[in-house]
């Protein structure tokens, strides 16, 4: 299936939210069994689980709307496993490789801070189902944000080595953060002009945490964009290859 030609802003927005959650959840799940200590391995794996659950809720809702308008039987599974790279609307930041632990928690922090303010807006949305999913997700994201903020501060304000590593990570991921708050038409259609507040709140939160970590916001001259419109880095292809293998090789197989 493809969702490339869909014009309905709500469906596109739901796909975008679901794709963000699924791809980030998939990336975070790569740490399962590899975390630096057991408690943190479990923490990140639980965060990944939350995100994949959130993705399911957005996909189920999108699948219902797509099925109603197209007459085809679309499910959450067809959305996750049977679309190609150009159909995915996740931000590029979610698909970036994990790098070391510091880079992973930094990515997680930057995205959680964005979701935290975005979902507070979505919670008040007049679409009841969207509001319900956002309300549920927000409770979970609050914990993701607190956990990842503490890690960024711990590493930035830690040893010379940890500080250098998180500084390097910040240089790598920062050019991908602009896309988070660079809102597309389908997003603005649903959230209205509240997008300006999301952007201001996000940058303020990032500033506060980075400052406490002894870090500065990098001065970037070039920003990477395009994920929200389906233009991705090569990394997404590798994720999909692994994630979709089973359904592609053995169509309609079930557990």
């Amino acid at each position, binding site marked *: 299936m493809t969702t490339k030609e869909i014009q309905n802003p709500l469906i596109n927005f739901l796909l975008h939210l679901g794709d963000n959650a699924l791809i980030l959840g998939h990336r975070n799940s790569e740490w399962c069994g590899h975390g630096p200590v057991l408690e943190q391995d479990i923490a990140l794996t639980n965060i990944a689980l939350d995100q994949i659950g959130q993705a399911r809720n957005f996909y189920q809702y999108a699948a219902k709307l797509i099925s109603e308008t197209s007459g085809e039987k679309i499910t959450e599974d067809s959305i996750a496993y049977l679309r190609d790279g150009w159909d995915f609307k996740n931000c590029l930041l979610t698909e970036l490789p994990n790098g070391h632990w510091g880079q992973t928690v930094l990515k997680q922090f930057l995205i959680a801070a964005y979701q935290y303010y975005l979902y507070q807006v979505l919670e008040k949305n007049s679409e009841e189902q969207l509001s*319900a999913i956002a309300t*549920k997700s927000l*409770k979970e994201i*609050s*914990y993701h944000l607190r956990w990842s903020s503490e890690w960024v501060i711990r590493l930035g304000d830690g040893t010379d080595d940890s500080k250098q590593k998180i500084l390097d990570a910040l240089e790598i991921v920062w050019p991908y953060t602009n896309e988070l708050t660079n809102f597309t038409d389908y997003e603005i259609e649903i959230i209205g002009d509240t997008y300006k507040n999301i952007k201001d709140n996000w940058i303020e939160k990032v500033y506060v945490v980075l400052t406490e970590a002894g870090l500065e916001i990098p001065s970037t001259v070039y920003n990477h964009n395009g994920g929200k419109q389906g233009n991705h880095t090569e990394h997404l292809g590798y994720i999909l290859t692994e994630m979709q293998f089973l359904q592609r090789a053995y169509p309609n197989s079930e557990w």
Partner: protein
Amino acid sequence: MTKSEEEIWQILEKISDPEIPVLSIIDLGIIRSVTVNDNTLDGISEVLIHYTPTYSACPAVDMINAEIGVSLHAAGFKNLHLKQKLFPAWTTDWMSEAGKEKLIQYGIAAPIGRSCDNGKLEELKIVCPQCGSNQTILISEFSSTACKALYKCSSCLEPFDYFKCH
């Protein structure tokens, strides 16, 4: 409430959360409504149950649904419709007081206060379910399941789970 609806609530009371077996699904507060239509054409009562899952990715949901189906079928309710209802979102506020007490007896600190409005978190003092001390330290925001945090008691030195306020 009709007689069969009452009977179904009693059956549901006996179904436990697979992850925290001391809690019934009624204690958890996930069952929103039970409606029975006895006046069907074929004479088989039609049961409609609305439930709200606890967490976005709660792995227990499928198992709970299966158990509801099996238990009701065994009691003669063969026409069951289980409907998920996401709105309003489940919150730990819906957990019964009896449920919270059972959690503590089981060794898990119960969620404190009301759910975190607007997702804001408070710094809370969690009381150790083992010895009752309030000298406890947060070890990890996430524990054996995503809905719990891992704490350590400074008085009895035992680790314990805290069912987070959601």
